[in-house]
């Protein structure tokens, strides 16, 4: 990767991207088996898109990678370190962009972004200001710095959440449905942002989404999770002509009014 000509306040090159490895990960909530022996690996610097219907366990899987959930069995490692261990969060900078944004409602947008560098004392107040304004500028959010999260639209909240993650200068970026509830143009914008962030900062990226455009547009590889199991894994291009009928159905559902799907759902 070459350094861009404009000086970035982020210390890009010193922080190599990390790989993620998920080995036979299973997770039960009481009797509910949410993940069933899921195995895959994400290479450093790759964009991996995880697709799947609602309730298939995608968010739960992401939480295992950042250590917010602990596996019932199996193992998740980030850069070779156990994701369940607290020290891993100190050694590897991981950022999760929550589906809801999870912005701190009591803080302004600026303070939301400044919280991480302030708490970890990575720079003085002037340096922090530079980092925060740079991140806001990347996402065209300069005007919102003084606003409170409750004043923002859905698309803006998602962008602020991404900006807050960027300020962490993460080695691993996780996005949970970054384009859900957005209009098509804003979805495309967010996809472009994800790809640009990955290009510029060479950060390993895992995106959970059920949007085909996003997967075909930016993914290096795509995994499909259904009912807690990984039913498909491969380069994005392979999905244009899927072999597995479940995958084909998921990616290209036909609306069939003669045989409506909801009438033969298993109960």
């Amino acid at each position: 990767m070459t350094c861009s000509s404009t000086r970035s306040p982020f210390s890009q090159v010193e922080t190599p991207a990390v790989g993620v490895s998920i080995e036979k990960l299973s997770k039960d909530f009481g009797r509910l088996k949410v993940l069933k022996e899921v195995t895959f690996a994400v290479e450093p610097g790759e964009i991996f898109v995880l697709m799947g219907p609602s309730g298939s366990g995608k968010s739960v899987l992401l939480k295992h990678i950042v250590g917010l959930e602990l596996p019932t069995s199996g193992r998740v490692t980030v850069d070779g370190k156990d994701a369940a261990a607290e020290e891993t969060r100190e050694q590897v900078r991981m950022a999760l962009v929550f589906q809801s944004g999870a912005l701190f409602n009591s803080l302004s947008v600026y303070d939301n972004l400044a919280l991480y560098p302030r708490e970890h004392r990575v720079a003085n107040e002037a340096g922090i200001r530079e980092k925060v304004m740079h991140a806001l500028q990347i996402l065209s959010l300069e005007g919102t710095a003084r606003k409170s999260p409750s004043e923002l639209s859905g698309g803006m909240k998602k962008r602020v959440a991404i900006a807050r993650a960027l300020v962490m200068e993460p080695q691993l970026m996780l996005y949970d449905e970054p384009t859900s509830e957005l209009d098509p143009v804003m979805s495309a914008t967010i996809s472009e942002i994800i790809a640009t962030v990955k290009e510029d900062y060479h950060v390993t990226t895992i995106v959970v989404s059920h949007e085909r455009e996003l997967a075909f547009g930016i993914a290096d590889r795509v995994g499909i999770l259904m009912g807690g199991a990984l039913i498909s894994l491969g380069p994005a291009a392979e999905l244009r002509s899927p072999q597995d009928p479940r995958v084909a159905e998921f990616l290209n559902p036909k609306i069939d009014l003669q045989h409506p799907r909801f009438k033969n759902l298993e109960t």
Partner: protein
Amino acid sequence: MKQITAILDGFGSTWLLLVRSLSYAGTLPRQYRRFFEQCYLIGYTTLPIVAILSFFIGSVLALQAGYSMQNFGTQQFIGSLVGLSMARELGPVMVAILLAGRVGSAITAELASMKVYQEIDALVTMNIPPARMLVLPRLAATLVMVPVLAIIADLVGWFGGAIVAKYTAMISIEPEAYFAVLRRYTHFKDVLNGLIKAELFGFVVVLVCCNIGLNTRGGPREIGASVTRAVVVSLILILVLDYFVTQVLMPLQ
């Protein structure tokens, strides 16, 4: 059985939270802004109601005491009764109860909503321990503000008693006489005894309210449930602890 494990869970997680928060005590100086903000919130939200209630508690104490004591002609000792009861018992217990109702419930509501809306998860992934940023400043502010509130409660309560003693016909004791007796029988160690109680109750209330907030699971409806639970658990703990602490402090007189 389920309730018992829930209670034990509560004890365990509260201890853990306490240990974790205290392990970050060294970061307090650089969190001075949060500390002062919490001091302000605790003082500002509780002071007016503490003042009003202790005034009336002092007054009613004087009234009841005057009523019973006139039978024996001992109403000149009202000052000692109001002085000791306020300082040793009613001041600290009332401050703790008001703290639970005003501050504790607000803390639980705030932390529970942060938990439900994943702000706590976001903090954890950012490697910012909630115990350090959210709990420690509140505990420290409580330790500083509660004695102040308790002293104010004592003073206002004594003053309320004095007014009732002077203007109630069956008592009619001048403030000079009232306060002379109060001073003779209420010693510094009685006030200190009350401050120790208030400090302990306040600390426990805020710790428990933080813990219940942070352990909220589910959706927005659970925020309300957590607040109710936090207040109820706080009140029970205050009254149970009060008995045992009084027993422990008794022989030290």
